[in-house]
């Protein structure tokens, strides 16, 4: 073990900031990072073991115990659950004889639940080591388990590869793109490197002006003006600057970056290269979520091909002195790393916790240098803007939300998938396209967004009205709204980094109270409790996760008041309906071998 760990660390020059990569390799090679391994890594990097443990224990894909040779992770987002994900997990449990969260005695298998794989348009899904399985059925799971038991390699489980590059020899995934509507900016055919060529003929200041004219805003959901961000980074007096692409699409219900990474990788890297030229950067990082690690070999090959074609690396596009290269940083299962400063922490080999701002990443980001962090789709748009012009881009969309947007639609509709439409279309327009005649509720922007009711379907998808990073989940009348709310809270409790008090503790309290509401154990005053607690969390939390985590509760109280009203009862006697005396006595009855004189009416019967 020692020599393997030492050689992994050496490969990264014993660089503490590359701890993520080191841990990913140790985890893969040794199937776990046990205390002895942490000790060795710490010694090699000149840090303490508990520092290593801090990072190991932060990410869901790292484990302090040795895992099975084959790790099966069943996706448990709400769409997968509605599509039968729970039953799928049960079949894995039966077939492998393994409880969720455990490893088989022979060390062959580990079975786990994972919050979101990014496959809600082809749910239910699971991940077997790095191989994604979609549209799982009971029969298919039984077959998969049988083959795994026979010794089939996970990657050989794929029988039918998906459309487009999903069939590329370096991807070979049974994932489908499900591109239902290609718009005029991103999913239409795009010429190779036209934006980059055009950009390299102009001065960075002109490019900033072009970008600002386009009105491009961040596609991750927050909607910050991209031009302003790039200009801020360019204006710093730093010796180095970094360009980071946020490919950590973790908001449940979002999968449009998966499609872009599969089909528009070149365009995305072109956009990053343009950003590098514009702000003056020589190095970039693609932060790829661990769940999309199946795309990594392909993305590496795209980077390599670009180096060979002179559009990445030294003297890009023949421009003397313009050097820019990119490395891929794989994540390890942490939603919070989609937050830009947490993502930077992760790239630096730290716990994926957001940083204090100010300073903002554009002033002091990766390793303390000005850093531009943008979403996959944002870089793709930037490349198109440099090719076609800011005015052209601004001709799509609304005043404050220009351009087209990729919407990932899933749930109760006939045509789930990716739709490229101009910003500002109404929810109803989108619902018509996805064929969802019985939609009763739509969750816009993922769990951190807003759930709207039928009377609000005329609202528009754009920053002025309903912002979204792409996630649109459709729910029909037969879905239980509070089950969805409860599930979203479970997600936030699981994914909170725990840094600040309100998000770490408050979300647990919110979830506990919603559980009580669902059981019909709450009264009207509990609504006030939920609203008040939600407000404290939203106002006092440190980052966007906490600012938005109460949204499932707050938006459904606003938009679905009847759902709560039917469950809230006035009891009047002041006794807490949630206190269950019978359950509280069960243990005692068993130990004392007698019934309760007070609470068992049939006390005297034998």
């Amino acid at each position: 073990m020692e020599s393997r760990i030492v050689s992994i660390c050496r490969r990264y020059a014993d660089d503490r900031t590359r701890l993520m990569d080191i841990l990913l390799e140790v985890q893969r090679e040794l199937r776990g990072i046990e205390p002895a391994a942490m000790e060795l890594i710490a010694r090699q990097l000149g840090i303490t073991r508990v520092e290593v443990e801090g990072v190991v224990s932060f990410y869901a894909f790292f484990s302090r115990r040795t895992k099975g040779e084959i790790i099966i992770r069943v996706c448990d987002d709400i769409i997968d659950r509605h599509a039968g994900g729970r039953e799928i997990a049960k079949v894995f449990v039966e077939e492998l004889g393994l409880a969720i969260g455990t490893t088989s005695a022979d060390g062959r298998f580990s079975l786990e639940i994972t919050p979101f794989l990014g496959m809600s348009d082809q749910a239910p899904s699971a991940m077997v080591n790095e191989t994604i399985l979609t549209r799982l059925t009971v029969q298919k799971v039984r077959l998969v388990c049988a083959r795994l038991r026979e010794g089939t390699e996970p990657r050989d489980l794929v029988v039918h590869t998906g459309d487009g590059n999903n069939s590329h020899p370096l991807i070979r995934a049974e994932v489908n793109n499900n591109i239902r509507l290609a718009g005029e900016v991103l999913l239409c055919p795009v010429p190779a490197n036209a934006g980059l060529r055009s950009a390299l003929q102009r001065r960075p200041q002109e490019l900033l002006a072009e970008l600002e004219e386009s009105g491009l805003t961040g596609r991750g959901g927050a909607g910050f003006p991209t031009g302003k961000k790039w200009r801020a980074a360019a204006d710093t007096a730093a010796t180095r600057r970094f360009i980071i692409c946020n490919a950590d699409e973790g908001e449940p219900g979002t999968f449009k970056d998966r499609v872009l990474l599969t089909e528009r990788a070149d365009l995305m890297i072109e956009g990053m290269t343009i950003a590098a030229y514009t702000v003056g950067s020589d190095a970039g990082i693609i932060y790829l979520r661990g769940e999309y690690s199946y795309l990594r070999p392909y993305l590496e090959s795209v980077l390599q091909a670009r180096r060979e074609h002179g559009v990445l690396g030294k003297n890009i596009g023949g421009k003397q002195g313009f050097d820019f290269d990119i490395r891929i940083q794989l994540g390890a299962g942490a939603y919070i790393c989609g937050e830009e400063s947490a993502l930077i922490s992760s790239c630096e080999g730290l716990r994926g916790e957001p940083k204090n701002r100010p300073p903002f990443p554009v002033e002091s980001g990766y390793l303390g240098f000005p850093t531009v962090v943008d979403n996959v789709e944002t870089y793709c748009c930037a490349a198109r803007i440099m090719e076609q012009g800011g005015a052209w881009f601004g001709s799509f969309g609304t005043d404050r939300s220009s351009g087209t947007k990729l919407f990932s639609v899933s749930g109760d509709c006939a045509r789930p998938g990716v739709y490229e439409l101009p910003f500002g279309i109404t929810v109803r327009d989108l619902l018509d396209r996805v064929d969802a005649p019985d939609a009763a509720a739509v969750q816009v922007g993922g769990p951190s967004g807003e759930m709207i009711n039928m009377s609000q379907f005329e609202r528009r998808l754009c920053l002025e009205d309903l912002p979204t990073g792409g996630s649109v989940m459709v729910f029909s009348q037969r879905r239980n709204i509070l089950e969805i709310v409860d599930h979203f809270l479970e997600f936030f409790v699981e994914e909170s980094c725990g840094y600040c008090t309100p998000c770490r503790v408050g979300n647990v309290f919110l979830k506990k109270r919603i559980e009580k509401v669902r059981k019909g154990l709450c009264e009207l005053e509990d609504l006030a409790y939920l609203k008040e607690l939600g407000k404290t969390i939203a106002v006092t939390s440190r980052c966007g996760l906490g600012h938005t985590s109460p949204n499932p509760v707050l938006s459904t109280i606003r938009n679905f008041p009847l759902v709560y009203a039917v469950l809230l009862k006035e009891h009047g006697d002041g006794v807490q309906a949630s206190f269950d005396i019978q359950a509280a006595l069960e243990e005692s009855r068993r130990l004392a071998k007698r019934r309760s004189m007070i609470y068992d009416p049939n006390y005297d019967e034998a």
Partner: protein
Amino acid sequence: MNKPFKFEIDGIEIEAQRGQSIMQAADEAGVYIPRLCDTEGLEPQGSCRVCVVKQNGRAVSACTQPAIEGAKVENETEEILGYRRDLVRMLYHEGNHLCPICEASGRCELQAMGYRLGITQATKYPYLQPARPVDASHPDIVLDTNRCILCGRCIRASRDIDKKHVFEYVGRGINKRVGVNGNKLAETDVKLNDRAIDLATCPVGCIIQKGRGFFAPIGERQFDKKPITLGVGPGKNRGKS
């Protein structure tokens, strides 16, 4: 360039230097902003959120937010006090804070913050009642993380002042806790006279010095007579052991 500027906290004019946080400027002006994770001599962390204030209407942590010229800062408004009560209550309910049996009672900053904020309202949050093992392996120190409020002061003191990095956060979310560099405290190189172990470092009774319990009689403990405020709080009037 480095000319001092002015801003307001609850209508009081405060002078600040460029680069100062709201907290630093307030401290220098003698205006107290309640805090738990921040303490003199350590990098501000901004995690407990008790120092939440509104700067020009936006909620920020005073310990990490730079002061802005001309800004209006709300510190002791009813709204802010309400948030602070909620936050302090959350910390109370997250851990096991059995004041009657805790060695730190009377000098505990969490308790003092409860007093200062006048928390007497009926319990509204559930108690989470963690059941983590107590680490009493070290000859001089006990670590009871059931009382930890995750302020990270011991982590920063050990890392930045003692240069030992004995403590670090492990886990995440509600399972986040303070871990030690080894299987137990006795395996680490932590020493009683480390800054991380100083009575002024741990605001609660999570880190306890053995053989030194209940040294101040009731009525003469740090917060028995005077509320926690500037100069009565972290790092002051406590003396090193």
